[in-house]
């Protein structure tokens, strides 16, 4: 009888789940970024909606039809939910009725704030999610979702953290890269009126504006209609939208500007008062003045950039390898034609053209490289981590070069060729002297140019050209001035040992730039990434020093020194790169003595790593002896439970545990056999993967 009843109940449940599965074309799930969080923290959670192909759900403003997805939270005391952070939506069919929403899947993000006095333990989080799902038809759907969050002493990310982070990157960006102006275009015609949004770039990151659109936030008083018209703009972009009034005209325009370009989509929130444009004549005037005002912002930063490039070019003149060139080569031709001031001026101008020509060639090379790079899909712009890492390494090398750790030389053949051409007389000679000055100056200019080049990469073609011409102009200016006023020769500083010191001095601002870039490059990464990149830079410095000291300036065993230098850099790289790799890491759980006892009771061997952020040995142990393929495999094979105890803030529980094993601090790595109360194998402070594998083998027996 009982079996029949059970079977019936089971069938009933099955029928129920089948029914709900058939009705809903959207599945909802609650995911958390943290498994364990501390009181007072804010935990990012998300409602993951998965739609069947062809079905969609709606954005915060569904548009002219549809319904925004709603989340109604049921939270324990001490937990408060913030507002939904909506990823950028798509425009949805049909064309006649503009709606905004999501196809396939979306994660609606919500920050949950834990009160400072929330008690440790498991918290049941639940919410009722309701939505309207549409394909050819629309069906209202809802689901009760739940998840458990543990409140503990240490934060621990969950397996869903990466998914949440990915969707968070699809929400509007907080950086101010665009500045907006919004104004009414004409008087209203009945219930409709046109509004124009003007945008210009103000950030240090330049966005590619291949496609710009505006998705409005909703209102019951008016509708910002779907169609977006592009209006020609002198700088940035301009869009025209039509507003349909129901009860009142908007005073502010709110929504999201969506910028597509360079295979990326970025969203920026817009919340701007709509300014009035009255008489048509005035409107045009105000229009052009606002356009030029927004243009000025761009012009100002461009002028600043070019000024720096020009000053950079001027500074190049007193670099050790440039100043003597003035004395020897240039003053030579000035002296030769002393009696013919007009000829001297002409030569001076031609010489300047020579310098500019060589810089144009360099700019051309950069532009060609950039467009080639874009074709193969490099996102060469600030914000791209790989680009920033490359730039950090470049700037760091430049600083080392300025310190004299190593030299940059061109091949002898190029030098000779330039020298031959420059030895010609007259106009052609002066032109090639200009090129020669650039080439001769390479050992000093290359580092600076390298940096300018790096920054220029992120700019548009016209700006790259302007930057390089400014540097060239700065480099050529003294010669040009001297050819017009040979008497000013007496103001020229004399070449001497001071130049070498000046060069070293310039290394420090370069190093500072490198540090700044390093923080940018590692902005979104974890602490260990900065550490590994930093360590790689140290290895690079050592390799480069060996190269400079024993290959470039050395006399004996250059081959060996060269090989050693390459080896050190390669080893540094190999050490740094696996550190950046996430994914396949060991699944660590927070340590507690109870967790150890529990795992042992269930027959699992336990690996415990007591570590701290400030403990370098711990980091090295982790990289070379724990997070390696062989150990990972072994851990899986023996079914080990992996626990990590973070001693960064020296919690008492871990201090006690360390004392038990007669250690004053971390590192302490223990391997417990999978038998209740069995004593652990205590591993030495400095580990190899062999030691760890041996201990695991012993513990699994």
């Amino acid at each position, binding site marked *: 009888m009982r079996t029949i009843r059970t079977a019936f109940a089971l069938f009933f449940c099955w029928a129920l789940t089948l029914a709900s599965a058939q009705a809903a074309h959207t599945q909802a799930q609650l995911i958390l970024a943290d498994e364990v969080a501390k009181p007072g923290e804010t935990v990012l959670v998300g409602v993951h909606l998965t739609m069947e192909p062809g079905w969609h759900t709606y954005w915060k403003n569904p548009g*002219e*039809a*549809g*319904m925004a997805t709603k989340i109604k939270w049921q939270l324990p005391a001490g937990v408060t939910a913030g507002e939904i952070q909506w990823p950028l939506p798509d425009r949805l069919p*049909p*064309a*006649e*009725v503009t*709606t905004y929403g999501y196809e396939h899947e979306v994660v609606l993000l919500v920050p949950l704030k834990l009160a400072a006095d929330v008690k440790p333990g498991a918290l049941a989080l639940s919410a009722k999610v309701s939505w*309207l799902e*549409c394909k*050819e*038809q*629309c*069906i*209202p759907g809802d689901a009760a979702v739940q998840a458990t969050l543990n409140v503990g002493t240490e934060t621990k990310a969950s397996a869903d953290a990466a998914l949440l982070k990915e969707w968070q990157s699809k929400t509007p960006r907080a950086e101010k890269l665009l500045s907006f102006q919004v104004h009414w275009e004409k008087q209203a015609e*009945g*219930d*409709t009126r046109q509004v124009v949004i003007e945008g210009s770039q103000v950030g240090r990151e330049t966005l590619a504006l291949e496609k710009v659109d505006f998705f409005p936030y909703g*209102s*019951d*008083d008016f*509708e910002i209609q779907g*169609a977006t*018209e592009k209006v020609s703009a002198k700088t940035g972009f301009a869009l025209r939208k*039509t507003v*349909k*009034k*129901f*009860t009142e005209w908007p005073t502010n325009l709110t929504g999201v500007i969506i910028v597509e370009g360079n295979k990326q989509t970025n969203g920026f929130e817009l919340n701007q008062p709509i300014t009035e444009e009255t008489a048509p004549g005035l409107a045009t005037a105000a229009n052009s003045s606002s356009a030029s005002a927004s243009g000025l912002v761009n012009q100002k930063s461009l002028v600043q950039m070019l000024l720096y490039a020009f000053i950079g070019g001027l500074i190049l003149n007193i670099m050790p390898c440039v100043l003597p060139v003035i004395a020897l080569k240039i003053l030579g031709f000035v002296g030769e034609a002393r009696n013919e001031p007009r000829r001297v001026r002409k030569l001076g101008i031609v010489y300047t053209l020579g310098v500019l020509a060589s810089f144009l060639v360099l700019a051309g090379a950069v532009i060609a490289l950039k467009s080639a790079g874009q074709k193969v899909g490099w996102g060469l712009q600030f914000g791209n981590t790989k680009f920033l890492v490359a730039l950090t390494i470049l700037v760091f090398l430049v600083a080392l070069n300025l310190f004299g750790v190593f030299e940059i030389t061109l091949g002898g053949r190029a030098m000779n060729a330039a020298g031959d051409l420059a030895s010609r007389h007259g106009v052609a000679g002066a032109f090639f002297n200009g090129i020669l000055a650039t080439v001769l100056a390479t050992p000093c200019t290359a580092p600076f140019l390298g940096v300018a080049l790096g920054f220029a990469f992120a700019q548009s073609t016209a700006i790259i050209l302007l930057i390089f011409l400014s540097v060239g102009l700065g480099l050529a200016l003294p010669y040009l001035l001297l050819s017009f006023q040979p008497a000013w020769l007496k103001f020229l500083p004399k070449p001497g040992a001071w130049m070498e010191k000046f060069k070293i001095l310039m290394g420090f601002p370069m190093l500072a730039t490198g540090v700044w870039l390093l923080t940018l490059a590692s902005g979104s990464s974890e602490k260990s990434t900065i550490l590994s990149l930093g360590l790689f830079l140290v290895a690079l410095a050592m390799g480069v020093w060996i190269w400079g000291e024993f290959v470039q300036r050395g006399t004996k065993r250059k081959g060996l020194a060269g090989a050693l230098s390459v080896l050190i850099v390669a080893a540094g790289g190999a050490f740094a790169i696996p550190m950046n790799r996430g994914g396949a890491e060991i699944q660590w759980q927070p340590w507690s003595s109870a967790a150890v006892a529990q795992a042992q009771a269930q027959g699992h061997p336990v690996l415990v790593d007591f570590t701290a952020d400030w403990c370098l040995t711990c980091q090295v142990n982790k990289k070379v002896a724990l997070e390696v393929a062989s150990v990972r495999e072994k851990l899986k094979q023996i079914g080990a439970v992996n626990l990590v105890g973070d001693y960064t803030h020296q919690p008492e529980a871990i201090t006690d545990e360390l004392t038990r094993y007669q250690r004053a601090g971390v590192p302490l790595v223990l391997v417990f056999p999978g038998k209740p109360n069995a004593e652990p194998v205590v591993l030495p402070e400095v580990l190899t993967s062999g030691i760890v594998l041996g201990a695991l083998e012993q513990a699994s027996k």
Partner: protein
Amino acid sequence: MKRLIALFGLMALVSSAFAAAEVGKTAPDFTGTDINGKTVKLSDYKGKIVVLESYNQDCPYCHDHFKTGSMQELQKEMTDKGIIWLMVNSVNAHNSSYRTPEKARAEWAEYKMHATAWLDDNSGAIGRAYGMLTTPHMFVIDKTGTLVYDGAIDDQPDPFHDPHKAHNYVRDAVGKVLAGEKVTTAKTKPYGCAVKY
């Protein structure tokens, strides 16, 4: 440049054609066929108040008004006063929510509808002329043929509400017209599912 102006002109024309219906102006005339094959022309009803209802029973917002009986009651209340009530179904013929005249007649009987006629607008001509965005999207035309209301049916955009408890904008607008007063709430944001053009 000329081409550009022509393009803008064309765009203005298209957008004006799409949103031709505007409160305070003459409602665009149309001719349609109802589910019994009868031809219906708006201008034939000059001198009478006309209510237009964009319809799709598969839309949960629309369905909510029918399953609660609220829409039919309003239809009856209006048509009893000699008001013309036209349901406009603009669902295209390839959509699974399209109703053949036969199925439409069955649905009419099932829900005991009290409208004057159900127009099969599967070409979307009437819907587009009025800028019908959602189901339900309501329009009220006064006796002179002027559009006096364009918007939602009531103030509760919810597929699970009881429409009897909501404030009905159509009843409100028709009441004002019958009393010879100006319609105060003449435009609201329509809610519901997108019209399946």
